[in-house]
């Protein structure tokens, strides 16, 4: 088994997902290496988000295994998977709308905190100390994504681009070692996308492995170490961006026209 | 000793009672499940429509002296109108609100309606005269009143009519489409507002019919709707929220459980049967026994 190889963070083996009679993912196998940025691409309905949902425990796969650093993730709850360091964002903007940006990040810091219910009720000094540290940490994370000035604003009042940054901040607060980003720049304008790419580079510098699902080919080709192309639930290509760009099957199936469009 | 095997007679009588009771339970359940399935509204005021039907029957027959058979459709019609009015006034502006919000509004409607009834009619129980002979219909060792037989026949007819509306009419087709997928139905040109009003009116009419039928059998009191609501919930949960055949069968199952439970276990826990059933079903098979598709939350 390839799981034993130390540089393989996440190993997906023979993953199959079906909804009713519909097959979303068919015996898909791939791995994510430590420290890399791996992108999953493919036309709509290719099974990218389904694979994400299976890896992070939101749906139960019909077959195959998912292992993270040798730990089997199948059957674990999303919260348990997050506790192992595998954290995701969502395709549709997903933040805590009724809270301020700062509180959003504070909510995300759940795993970073250690308070026990009884300690909280009796207000032990350790709790107050930790609260202070958490607030500090939340400010740091907000600054990291460039939202330090927005902390006091309600999430619902943030513009779209900043909401997407806030999502990433929430995910970062959960201290991921493997971060799964589901179309993080969809709907962003080119300058927002450019600054997001910079943030991605800084995330990478924190030693966080990234698995990315994205339609924006400029971004995918710009940041990825490796790209996997899916079509109709199957992997049709796997390799460095340059190889994918020139892969005949990818171009034929999907990439060609879309990439040209993205160039415009 | 009356019969040769009295226990057999008792069982037969229980079964007969349960059958008769089940018809009206099903009527209540179908109305509630329709409203939930199509509108996603947990109608806490359902029992009040039931009480309303009974009070309208009382109004026509006992106060205004109308003919019993004429009063019945009139009471149901008034129930339909009240239901339509409630939908237009209370629910229309909450379209798209979450389920808890509509639930709170319906609880408010329930409390208001019940107490307005209490203010109008006072808490004293009313009884309604019927044109049926007072001696019962005797079938061998068991017997039942003509009134209950009439209730059972009309209830079955109304259930049949509801199935026909849902399956045979244009309105029913649009309702089914809305039930499956509201957005797609809207895209296909279904007038969602009209469907919602029609659904709530139909569901309310069925509840009012159950009340108008049972009012003369029992007595009419303002609080009669509470138990009716809770039983309707049990029936609907049993059959799966949104399933009409489920509600039909659920109505009969609940009636049998209550009747046999009271007859052979303990009559004190008769009304607990429904709730125990709800809890057990939801813990074992949360979608109900007859749910058509997975629908949680």
């Amino acid at each position: 088994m390839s799981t034993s190889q130390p540089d393989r963070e996440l190993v997906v083996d023979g993953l199959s997902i079906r909804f009713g009679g519909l097959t979303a993912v068919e015996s898909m196998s791939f791995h994510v290496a430590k420290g890399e940025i791996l992108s999953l691409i493919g036309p709509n309905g290719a099974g990218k988000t389904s694979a994400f949902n299976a890896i992070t425990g939101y749906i139960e796969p019909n077959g195959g295994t998912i292992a993270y650093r040798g730990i089997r993730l199948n059957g674990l709850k999303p919260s348990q998977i997050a506790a192992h360091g595998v954290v995701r964002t969502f395709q549709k903007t997903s933040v805590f709308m009724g809270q301020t940006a700062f509180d959003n990040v504070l909510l995300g810091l759940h795993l970073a905190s250690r308070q026990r219910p009884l300690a909280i009720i009796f207000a032990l000094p350790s709790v107050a100390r930790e609260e202070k540290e958490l607030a500090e940490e939340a400010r740091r994370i907000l600054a990291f994504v460039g939202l330090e000035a927005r902390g006091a604003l309600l999430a619902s009042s943030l513009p779209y681009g900043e909401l997407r940054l806030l999502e990433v901040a929430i995910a970062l607060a959960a201290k991921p070692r493997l971060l799964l980003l589901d179309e993080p720049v969809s709907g962003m304008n080119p300058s927002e996308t450019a600054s997001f790419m910079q943030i991605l580079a800084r995330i990478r510098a924190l030693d966080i492995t990234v698995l990315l699902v994205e339609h924006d080919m400029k971004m995918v080709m710009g940041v990825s170490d490796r790209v996997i192309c899916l079509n109709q639930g199957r992997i049709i290509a796997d390799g460095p961006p340059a190889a994918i760009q020139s892969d005949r099957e990818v171009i034929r199936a999907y990439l060609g026209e879309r990439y040209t469009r993205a160039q415009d | 000793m009356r019969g040769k095997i009295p226990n057999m007679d008792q069982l037969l009588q229980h079964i007969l009672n349960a059958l008769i009771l089940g018809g009206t339970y099903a009527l209540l359940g179908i109305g509630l499940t329709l409203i939930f399935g199509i509108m996603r509204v947990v109608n806490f005021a359902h029992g009040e429509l039931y009480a309303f039907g009974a009070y309208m029957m009382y109004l026509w027959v006992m106060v205004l002296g109308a003919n019993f058979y004429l009063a019945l459709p009139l009471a149901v019609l008034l129930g339909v109108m009240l239901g339509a009015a409630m939908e237009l006034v209370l629910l229309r502006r909450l379209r798209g609100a979450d389920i808890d919000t509509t639930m709170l509004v319906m609880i408010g409607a329930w409390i208001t309606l019940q107490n307005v009834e209490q203010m109008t009619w006072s808490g004293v129980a009313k009884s309604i005269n019927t044109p049926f002979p007072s001696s019962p219909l005797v079938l061998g060792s068991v017997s039942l009143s003509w009134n209950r037989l009439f209730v059972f026949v009309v209830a079955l007819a109304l259930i049949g009519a509801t199935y026909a509306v849902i399956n045979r009419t244009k309105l029913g087709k649009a309702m089914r489409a809305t039930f499956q997928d509201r957005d797609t139905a809207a895209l296909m040109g279904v007038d969602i507002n009209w469907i919602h009003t029609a659904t709530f009116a139909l569901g309310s009419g069925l509840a009012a019919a159950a009340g108008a039928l049972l009012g003369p059998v029992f007595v009419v009191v303002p609080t009669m709707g509470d138990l009716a609501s809770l039983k309707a919930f049990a029936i609907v949960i049993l059959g799966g929220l949104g399933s009409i055949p489920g509600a039909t069968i659920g109505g009969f199952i609940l009636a049998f459980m209550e009747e046999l439970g009271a007859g052979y276990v303990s009559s004190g826990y008769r009304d607990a049967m429904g709730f125990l059933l709800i809890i057990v079903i939801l813990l074992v098979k949360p979608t109900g026994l007859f749910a058509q598709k997975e629908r949680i939350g």
Partner: protein
Amino acid sequence: MMSRTFKTALAVLGATLLAATASAQDTIKIGVTQPLTGAFAASGTYVMQGAKIAEEQINKAGGVLGKKIQLIVEDNKSNPTEAVSTAEKLIVREKVPVMLGAWSSTLTLAVMPKLEEYKVPMLVETSSSGKITTSGNPYVFRISPTSEMEARAFTPLVKSLGIKKADFLATNNDFGLGASKEFSEMLKRENVQIGTMEVMDPKATDFSAQLAKIKASGSDTLFVTTAVEQITLILKQAKDQQVTARIITTGGSNSPDQLIQQAGDAANGSSHLVFFTPWFPEAVKNPDIARTFVALWNEKKHHVGGLTEGFRGWDGIYTIVEGIKAAGKAEPEAIQKALWGVKVKGINGDIAFIKQGPAGRESAQNVPSVYLVKIDSGKVIRQ
């Protein structure tokens, strides 16, 4: 209008505390807590109407101690917690020296700790639970019979009615269960076989399951204890299911007139234990008082079916007023002491109290009369 609302608001905020200190009053207040809404609304209203008639009569005759009496009526909504609230309000805010209430045993039991707390006597007019007079509350004066007394009064009838086997159907509360218990124990002593003992929710309307079981038990008599609304339905449904056992209702909240009206010919043949027989006032101990009451009741156009409940209010108020007269002042402790000695000619009979409960803390209990009547061809007859 404005000032009234304002004043009430102040009262609620507690600012009327100064105004509330009793100045020279020109009336003697008597607190009445009855269920005017909720499950027992009908009966509570009748008792209140009977009490109001007594108030009018007493004031017409010059009141008591040279003052008029004034009933302060509070609705306890058939709910024990509300009953406690009404007692609080009557005693603390209205400063009544004596109360009448609270219809059902549960409601009375709820109020009782308040009587002890504030040392105010209460005349109990309807409740039947033995607990009320045996729990050591010296502020309780009960004129209604306990289930046990009712059962004892019934004993001679067991033979004459020829009861061999009896079933019970009782509403699931102190009233119903207490009666089932006392009557079944009494019947067992009389060597009567006990069939099935069924209960029903106080709000239930469908008794088909219970009746099917009762029918199968093959008893000759069915004892039913509940309020008149459920009795009506039971009589009708028993007929539908051809239950042939003789039905006897206990507890005195059975209003035969209302049964005749609402159950029609299903009521025929049923017997009822009542504490007042307005159909033949000559049968009671003080027929003149009974006739006066019936006449006044009809004059007010109150529901004829309410007479058998309404008399309790009359008897209660007359007993209280007698107590105030004997006390010579409208103060709780004096009235409590004086009530022990009163002898009142009431509608039910002569009212006087005997001691019940633990020594030193006895409650007062009257020994009332009990009558059995029968409905025959739509008429109430003596049995």
